[in-house]
C-alpha cells in the first residue's frame, strides 16, 4: 500500500505543477491510473492483484472527493487536501512498518512494546499474584470495565467447551455464563445464607444455593452450565460447599475484603460474619485476573480473541493518531481486506514472550476463521472506541 500511496502523491504533485485544473478532469486521473496499472502488472505478478485493488480504491476515492468539492474549493486546495491525506496515510503506514524490530533489538522502545504494555495495563495486566492483578484491573474498571468484560467474551464462544478434557484450559465467557455471573452477584447482594468459613471457623461467609442460580432457566436451557457448575464457578473465585452452596474461595475472600466487597459484622454468637456488597464487576474481574495470571492455559478461542482485540486497538490507535478524522483514505484502512492483511501478523507478534506472552501457535490461520473473528469489527462497543482515542492521545503525548 505504501508505495502506491507515495507514487500517487508524486503523481498529484507533478500534475498540479503542470496545471492544477488538470486535477478536475476524471479522465486524466483515470488515464494515469490505467498507465500505472499496466506497468505494474508486468513487474510483480504476486502483488499486482492487491496493488491494482488499492490503486483503484485510491483513485476512486480521489475522484469522488474532487467531484464533491470542486465547486467549493480551488484546484490547488483540492490538491493540497489530497496530498496532505496521502502524506498522513504514508506516515501511518511508516509507523506500522517499523512497529517492531525483526531482531527484537531494543524492543522496549518499539511502538509495539509500548502499545501492548499500555493496553495490557488497562485490560489484561500481569502481576506477581492474583491480588495484584485484580487490584490493577479494578483501578482501571471505572473507565474500561466494558472493554475488560468484552475481552473475556469471544464471538466464537459457541465453540468453547465448559468441560474441557484438559483441566487447566481456561475458556472464554459466553453470554449465558455472563448472565449466570450476574445472577450470582444479585443473589449475594439480596439475601444470602451464611455458613462457617471452612478454613477459619471463627468467621462466617456468605453462601448461596447452587440450584437457585439456575432457577430462572426454563426447559433446561442452562443444563450444560448446571452440570459444569464447578468448572464455571472456579473461574470466578467460588467453590461448592456440601454439594449445595456456592461460597467464595479462601484466597478470593482476602481479595474481596481488601476491596470492600465484604464487610465484617460481629454476630451475637461472637462470630464475625462477612456480609457481601458486590458490584457488577466483582466476579467478572476475578475471571479476567485468573485468565491473565494463567495466560499460558487460555483456550484457542480466547487467545485468538484477546490477540485480535489488542491488534485492532493498536492498529486503530495508530490510525487515529496519524490520520485526521476527515482523511478521505480512512475507509481503505478500515476495509476488511486491509484488516485481513495487517491484523493477523500483528496478532502473532503480540503473542511473543516479550509482549503478551500467550501461545502464538494457537493463532489460527484459516481464511474462514479470520472472516469469522473479523466480523466483530462491525460491532465494536463504544468503550472500545474510547480506548482507541486514549491510545491516540498516549501516542501523541509520549516522547
Amino acid at each position, binding site marked *: 500500500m505504501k508505495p502506491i500511496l507515495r507514487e500517487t502523491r508524486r503523481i498529484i504533485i507533478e500534475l498540479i505543477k503542470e496545471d492544477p485544473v488538470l486535477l478536475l478532469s476524471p479522465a486524466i486521473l483515470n488515464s494515469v491510473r490505467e498507465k500505472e496499472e499496466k506497468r505494474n502488472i508486468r513487474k510483480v505478478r504476486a502483488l499486482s492483484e492487491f496493488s491494482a485493488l488499492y490503486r483503484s480504491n485510491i483513485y476512486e476515492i480521489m475522484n469522488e472527493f474532487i467531484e464533491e468539492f*470542486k465547486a467549493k474549493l480551488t484546484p490547488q486546495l483540492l490538491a493540497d487536501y489530497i496530498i496532505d491525506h496521502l502524506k498522513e496515510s504514508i506516515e501511518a503506514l511508516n509507523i506500522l512498518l517499523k512497529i517492531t524490530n525483526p531482531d527484537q533489538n531494543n524492543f522496549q522502545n518499539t511502538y509495539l512494546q509500548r502499545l501492548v504494555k499500555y493496553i495490557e495495563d488497562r485490560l489484561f495486566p500481569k502481576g506477581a499474584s492474583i491480588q495484584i492483578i485484580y487490584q490493577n484491573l479494578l483501578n482501571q474498571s*471505572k473507565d474500561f470495565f466494558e472493554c475488560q468484560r468484552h475481552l473475556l467474551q469471544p464471538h466464537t464462544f459457541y465453540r468453547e467447551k465448559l468441560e474441557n478434557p484438559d483441566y487447566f484450559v481456561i475458556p472464554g465467557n459466553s453470554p449465558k455464563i455472563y448472565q449466570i455471573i450476574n445472577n450470582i452477584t444479585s443473589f449475594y447482594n439480596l439475601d444470602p445464607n451464611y455458613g462457617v468459613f471452612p478454613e477459619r471457623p471463627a468467621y462466617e461467609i456468605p453462601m448461596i444455593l447452587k440450584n437457585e442460580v439456575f432457577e430462572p432457566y426454563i426447559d433446561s436451557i442452562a443444563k450444560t452450565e448446571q452440570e459444569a457448575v464447578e468448572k464455571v464457578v472456579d473461574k470466578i473465585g467460588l467453590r461448592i460447599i456440601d454439594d449445595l452452596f456456592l461460597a467464595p474461595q479462601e484466597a478470593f475472600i482476602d481479595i474481596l475484603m481488601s476491596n470492600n466487597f465484604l464487610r465484617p459484622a460481629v454476630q451475637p454468637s461472637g462470630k464475625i460474619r462477612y456480609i457481601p456488597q458486590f458490584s457488577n464487576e466483582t466476579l467478572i474481574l476475578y475471571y479476567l485476573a485468573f485468565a491473565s495470571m494463567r495466560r499460558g492455559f487460555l483456550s484457542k478461542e480466547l487467545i485468538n480473541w484477546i490477540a485480535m482485540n489488542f491488534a485492532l486497538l493498536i492498529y486503530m490507535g495508530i490510525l487515529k493518531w496519524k490520520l485526521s478524522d476527515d482523511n478521505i483514505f480512512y475507509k481503505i484502512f478500515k476495509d476488511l481486506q486491509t484488516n485481513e492483511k495487517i491484523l493477523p501478523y500483528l496478532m502473532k507478534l503480540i503473542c511473543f514472550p516479550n509482549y503478551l506472552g500467550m501461545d502464538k501457535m494457537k493463532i489460527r490461520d484459516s481464511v474462514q476463521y479470520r472472516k469469522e473473528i473479523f466480523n466483530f469489527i462491525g460491532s465494536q462497543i463504544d468503550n472500545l472506541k474510547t480506548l482507541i482515542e486514549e491510545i491516540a492521545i498516549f501516542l501523541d503525548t509520549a516522547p
Partner: protein
Amino acid sequence: MSIIPALKCSWNELLDNFIKGLDNAIVELNAHSIDTIAGALPLLLDRLRIMQNNFPANNGQIFKQTIDDIIQNAFFPENLTFAQSFEKILNSRTHEQDFIINELVNGFITSKAKAIASYSQGPIIDRMVEAFSKRNDFHIVDHQFYAMFGDPNVPRTYVMINLQILIDLFGLVSEELVIQKDIRKSEEKVYTFYTFPNDILNVLKKKYLITNPVTGNLSVSEAFDRNVFICLFLANIAVNRSNLSSIGGKYTVNGISAIFALILVLSFMPKMTATPQLLKHPSFSSPNVSISVIPKSWMMKKVLESIFEPLIKIIAFRLGGIQWCEAIIDTEINKKIHTQIRFLLKDVNKWILGELCRVEIPIFIEILNTIQVTLQAQQSGRTTTTP
C-alpha cells in the same frame, strides 16, 4: 403454587389482584427487609402504598397513562402500520434507551428457539448489519448469507433454517431474480434477494442513507446498527400482536410484559441518599451518567413475586387485551420468569458495593413525572370534593 389465585382477565379483577399482591408484598417487607441504608424501608413501603392506593384509582388511570401513552408509545406503538411503528421506535432511541431495547431482546432467554440473541445469533445480527450496510439498496443475496455463516461442520440446511428464522423475526421480504442463462453453466439460475418491506425501506433510506449531492452516490451511514434490527423486531411484534403464533407465542408475551413491568416499577422507585462509601465510588460518581440509589428489598423473592405477578398481567392486558393476558403463564414457569427480572436491565440497573443503583434515563423520568402529575390531580380532586 401461585400466591395469587389464577383469575380471568377482566380489568377490574386485575386491579383488585394488584392491590392484593401489594398487600402481600407489604406484609413480607414488614416481616423481613434487606435494605441497610437508613430510611430505605419506610421509603419503599411508602411507594408501595401509593402504588396500592393510587394506581388502580379512577379505573387504573395511572396504568393507562404510563403503559399506553409512554411505554407503548416509545417501544410498542399501537394502531400503526409496520413502517410507522418502526419509525416511532427508532425515533425514541437514545443511547441509554438502547440498553432497554437491547435487553428486551436479550431478555428472552426463556424462548430458546425464537430468541434472536441466543447462542450464535447475537453476532448474526451484527453480521446482518454489516451485510446490509455494504449495499446502498439494503439488499442481501442468499449466497452472501451462506458465505458469511456457512460452516463446513454444519449442514447447509441449518444455515438456511437460521436465515428463515431471522427473515420471519424481522419481517423481511424476499425477491427473486431469474437469470435465463447463467454464464458458467448456461442454465437457468434463481437468485433470492432479501430486503426490507417497501415502507421500511423508505424510512431507512431517509434516516441512514447519505447521498453525495454531486455524484449522487449513496452510502449507508454508521448510525445503521444492530438496534435498527431490534427496533424492527419490536415493531414486527407490535404490529402482529394479535397473532401470537407469528410472534413467538407465549414466551414472547411473557418476556415483553415482564420487561415493561420492570421499567414501570424501576421508574417509581424512591431515590435514597447515597452512603459516603458509594459517593466515593468511581462508578457512582461518573460525570457522564446520572445514577441514583434505590431500595433493593423489592427484589427479594417473595416480594418480587407478589408485585410482579399481577403487574405483568396488567401490562399484558394493556398491550394485547385478553388474548395477551391469558397467555401469561400461571405455573411454576411464571416464578422462573419473575426471578429472571433480577438480572434483567443490567446496564441501567446495576450493583455498586451491594446497593442497587439505577441509571437515570429519559423514559424513567417521563413515567415518574406522569405518575406524579396524576397523583397530584387525584389529591386535589379528593381535597376539593371532601366537604
